[in-house]
């Protein structure tokens, strides 16, 4: 357990000197919302002692110097839409929210880049870029509230990674404040760069444990001219997953290949009052194809649709207009919410396996479900091998039973994913608080030791987002 100093009146007054009175929140009602993210609040929430809302990078640097001097933990925070507890102030202290730093600094049309502060809502950024016919392809499209800084800190993935990859692919430059309060300018508007270590890459996906991302320069792409979707039903989940492999081998790269098992479809359709013909469907794939030419997109759409038909699809629906596309994507996007309504006590998982092994995941989920009498809902980014298997407590089961069984299911699942399939326990949500105990168990010892050594080299006082990723960083 790490020992930190408390935030006292003197610290509050020094923080107020840095940000002004509007930038410091201490009122319990106001800081409560900074005590949790989108993971279960009861289980993981923790109150901060103070919340600061800086407006500039130099204010953040001053705050870090202050925290460093007084040995107070600082938890950086974006929109709080994370799913692994990364923004939760486990040891109290200061929550540093970048929400006021939401300006677009520059859209460089010659180099096709945008430079923005970390607190911009990524959806707003993309809406703005749309007017220029451009977009940030690494945007996870998960929540319309998430911030650019959080996307980078978590190296967010999302539904379009099959074709466009994850957030990190598009980050050209970063401005970062170190735990000691130094400001680093890393990378630049260049495609190639081996001038020294690629430090920028180290901060991408570091979950706010190495530095605070304050500004980023992002590579942009031209908006695709045409987008079409297929919604494909299968009799069994296994047949749907098998079709994914067939599509991936065919030489067409869809933008998304999303998988939904029967339970997730029924829960989401019930939740949305959607009347898709889903009742007898074993599983569905939602496949999106985009491109610069309508005719090419149409041809690929038909080709993929026919491949599905050849691979035991029972029906192939198409959505070529925006409103129908919104309608079918709503089914996929609302699964997590619908499952929460069914049972708020759950563990939303984020396992990822090599794409060739994805077919082997489902039988193991079935086995675990049977062995431990838990319901497992499975959906996610099948084209990336990234599945959001969600283990849920049946409403009738007791909390005691759940607490006993949840870690057992997770341990067996993680061990299978890592040791048998060569996968990882999180693809895009991160380790945060939620999985740190398990990461230690499944990660190779020497990699684990090297990672802690790196953390200590960057943050020897362990004041930046302590208690995340590592189970025993302080020992």
């Amino acid at each position, binding site marked *: 357990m790490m020992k930190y100093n408390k935030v006292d009146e003197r610290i509050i007054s020094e923080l107020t000197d840095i940000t002004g009175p509007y930038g410091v929140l201490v009122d319990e009602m106001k800081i409560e919302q900074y005590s949790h993210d989108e993971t279960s609040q009861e289980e993981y929430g923790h109150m901060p002692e103070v919340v600061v809302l800086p407006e500039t990078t130099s204010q953040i640097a001053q705050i870090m110097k202050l925290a460093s001097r007084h040995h107070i933990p600082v938890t950086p925070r974006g929109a709080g839409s994370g799913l692994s507890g990364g923004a939760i102030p486990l040891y109290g202290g200061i929550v540093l929210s970048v929400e006021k730093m939401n300006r677009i600094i520059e859209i460089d049309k010659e180099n096709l880049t945008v430079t923005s502060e970390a607190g911009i809502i990524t959806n707003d950024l993309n809406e703005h870029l749309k007017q220029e016919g451009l977009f940030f392809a690494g945007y996870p499209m998960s929540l319309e509230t998430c911030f650019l800084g959080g996307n980078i800190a978590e190296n967010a993935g999302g539904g379009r990674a099959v074709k466009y990859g994850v957030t990190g692919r598009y980050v050209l430059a970063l401005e970062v404040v170190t735990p000691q309060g130094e400001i680093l300018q890393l990378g630049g508007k260049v495609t190639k760069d081996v001038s020294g270590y690629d430090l920028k890459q180290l901060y991408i996906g570091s979950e706010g444990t190495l530095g605070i991302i304050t500004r980023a320069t992002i590579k942009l792409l031209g908006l695709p001219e045409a987008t079409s979707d297929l919604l494909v039903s299968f009799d069994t989940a296994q047949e749907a997953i098998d079709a994914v492999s067939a599509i991936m081998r065919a030489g067409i790269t869809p933008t998304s290949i999303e998988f939904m098992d029967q339970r997730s479809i029924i829960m989401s359709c019930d939740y949305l009052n959607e009347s898709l013909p889903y009742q007898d469907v074993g599983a569905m794939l939602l496949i999106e194809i985009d491109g610069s030419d309508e005719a090419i997109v149409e041809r690929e759409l038909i080709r993929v649709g026919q491949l599905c038909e050849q691979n035991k699809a029972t029906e192939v629906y198409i959505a*070529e207009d925006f409103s129908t596309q919104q309608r079918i994507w709503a089914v996929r996007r609302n699964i997590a919410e619908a499952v929460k309504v069914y049972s708020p006590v759950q563990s939303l998982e984020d396992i990822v396996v090599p794409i060739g092994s994805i077919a082997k995941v489902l039988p193991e989920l079935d086995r675990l479900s049977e062995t431990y009498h838990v319901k497992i809902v499975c959906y996610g980014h099948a084209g990336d091998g990234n599945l959001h298997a969600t283990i849920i407590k049946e409403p009738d089961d007791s909390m005691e039973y759940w607490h006993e069984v949840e870690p057992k299911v997770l341990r067996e699942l993680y061990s299978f994913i890592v040791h048998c399939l060569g996968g990882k326990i999180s693809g895009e949500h991160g380790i945060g608080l939620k999985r740190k105990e398990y990461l230690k168990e499944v990660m190779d010892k020497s990699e684990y030791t090297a990672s802690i050594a790196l953390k200590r080299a960057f943050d020897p006082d362990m004041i930046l987002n302590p208690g995340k990723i590592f189970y025993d960083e302080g020992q």
Partner: protein
Amino acid sequence: MVIVVPIKQVPETSNVQMDSVTGVMIRSGSKAILNPLDLYAIESALRYKEACDARVIAVTMGPQSAMKVLKEAIAMGCDDAVHISDRAFAGADTWSTSYTLAKAIAGMGKVDLIITGERATDGDTGQVGPEIASWLNLPLVTYVSQLIEMRSDSMMVKRMTEEGYQKLEVTLPALITVLKEVATVRLSTLKGKMRAMDMIIPTRTVKDLDVEPSYLGLKGSPTKVVKIEQARVKRDALIIEAMEADKVPDAVISLFDFLEDKQLLEKGESR
């Protein structure tokens, strides 16, 4: 029986932009789609077909590019489609459009039922459906929210009014305009799309229709657009600051003044 569904190609409204100088919709760059409200008309026709074994014909008037929405209608399950296209029709208002469509429908032989969407999302007039009924002298039921009974010679429908609902029995032939509430729209299938791609859709021009030339297109349209203005929403926000305790009484008084000024509170009430 035969059911005709007139449909329209409209710009995708999620990104419609207006030219601030001319007030005209900027169509370049915005994708053309099937009017979303027409989907409910097609869906209603297909349900009728399932109930009474009808043949469903989609019809649209527009340039060559409008062929796309007819293909979509076929992909959803319509049996046939007719494309009405001629330079002479260009620029038609609702009166001239409904005249041309009515003439085309009249030329199709025995038609039992015409179903249209409530309105198109671009012009927003909701006039063309009722006008077709008028040209063809057909009974008209607008704002249909439910098809209660579907028979080959009559139907029972629920119609939404400003006060509530009406339940109406209508003899066919007739024309109805349907609301979103009428049904959930089915998705097109790949099989339907393949069928649509293979289908050759006939185009009818002026010489195929028995029309009065002076009723057609921009010249034949009595509606003249003088000016289009985009309504602007203006928000006047009053921010009363009271960060320190001693400023609160004044702030409360300002708030009362404001609410009284806007007639949201009566003068002197609860002060």
